[in-house]
């Protein structure tokens, strides 16, 4: 039984995400060489960094949709912004969990408050976590959509600060592999990283569209219920 990608793009995206995830797992555990410095634990890099970049991407997408809502009054932009931030928070929590595991095996600590990269990411995560408290404390309607959009836009300022923190910090424990001179790793490692990042972004995009479809159906059903009442 097959399906046509044009008729069901979400199923095609899900299939692509599945293929890419399998390919990235195969590359991580059967292709890429073990890092000479960190050993086997360096393999966490191939999941931790793509997950973190996915979280940044979704926070950014949420802010973009919030801007579209405020600027162009794009229909559905508020819902898209909300779902994108929800995805960002899920991937943000995964970043903190995988990062904590990597920190424990590499540095001997679950968390280091002295690391500005870690603390700034936590601030970003908590900021967007509070978005849901704000959203659910307000009555649904245009006012809630506007307030939430403004809040989502404020948070986007934290993204470049959090991303650049390790480059601006004086004390470096958190590794920096992407510099102005390019990626500081072997070609096979960079290829594996690129496949992992693509897999993670595709997986997140699939989850985003599935959640968005569910939310849209939910709101249409509510509308239908009101019409039938």
């Amino acid at each position, binding site marked *: 039984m097959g399906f046509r990608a044009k008729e069901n793009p979400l199923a095609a995206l899900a299939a692509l995400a599945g293929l890419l995830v399998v390919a990235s*797992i195969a590359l991580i555990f059967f292709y890429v060489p073990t890092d000479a410095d960190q050993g086997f*634990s360096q393999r966490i890099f191939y999941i931790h960094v793509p997950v973190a970049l996915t979280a940044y991407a979704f926070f950014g997408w949420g802010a973009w949709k919030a801007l579209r809502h405020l600027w162009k009054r794009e229909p559905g932009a508020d819902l898209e912004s909300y779902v994108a931030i929800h995805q960002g928070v899920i991937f943000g929590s995964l970043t903190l969990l995988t990062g904590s*595991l990597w920190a424990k095996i590499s540095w001997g600590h679950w968390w280091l408050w002295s690391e500005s990269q870690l603390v700034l990411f936590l601030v970003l995560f908590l900021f967007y976590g509070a978005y849901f408290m704000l959203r659910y404390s307000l009555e649904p309607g245009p006012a809630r959509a506007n307030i939430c959009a403004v809040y989502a836009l404020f948070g986007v300022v934290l993204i470049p600060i959090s991303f650049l923190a390790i480059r601006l910090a004086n004390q470096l424990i958190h590794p920096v592999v992407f510099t102005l001179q390019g990626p500081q790793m072997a070609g096979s490692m960079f290829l594996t990283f690129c496949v992992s990042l693509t897999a993670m972004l595709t997986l997140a995009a699939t*989850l985003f569209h599935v959640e968005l479809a569910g939310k849209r159906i939910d709101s249409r059903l509510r509308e239908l219920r009101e019409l039938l009442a």
Partner: protein
Amino acid sequence: MTLAVTAAEKYVAAAYGIVFLVVLVYVLIIALKLGRLESELDELTGQVRERREAETEQREELPVA
């Protein structure tokens, strides 16, 4: 025969396992939500059907001029 697993391997397995578990839980939540939406849709379809049947009955009761 015991399989010797190093600390690094345990941490790597935990990191990948957590991501897999969270995605699985997320998919489960979405599946539950879709189930709820489906039952809600069934309920609304039933309401529309009942209303239509009632309307048809009313129409049949009306005398033809």
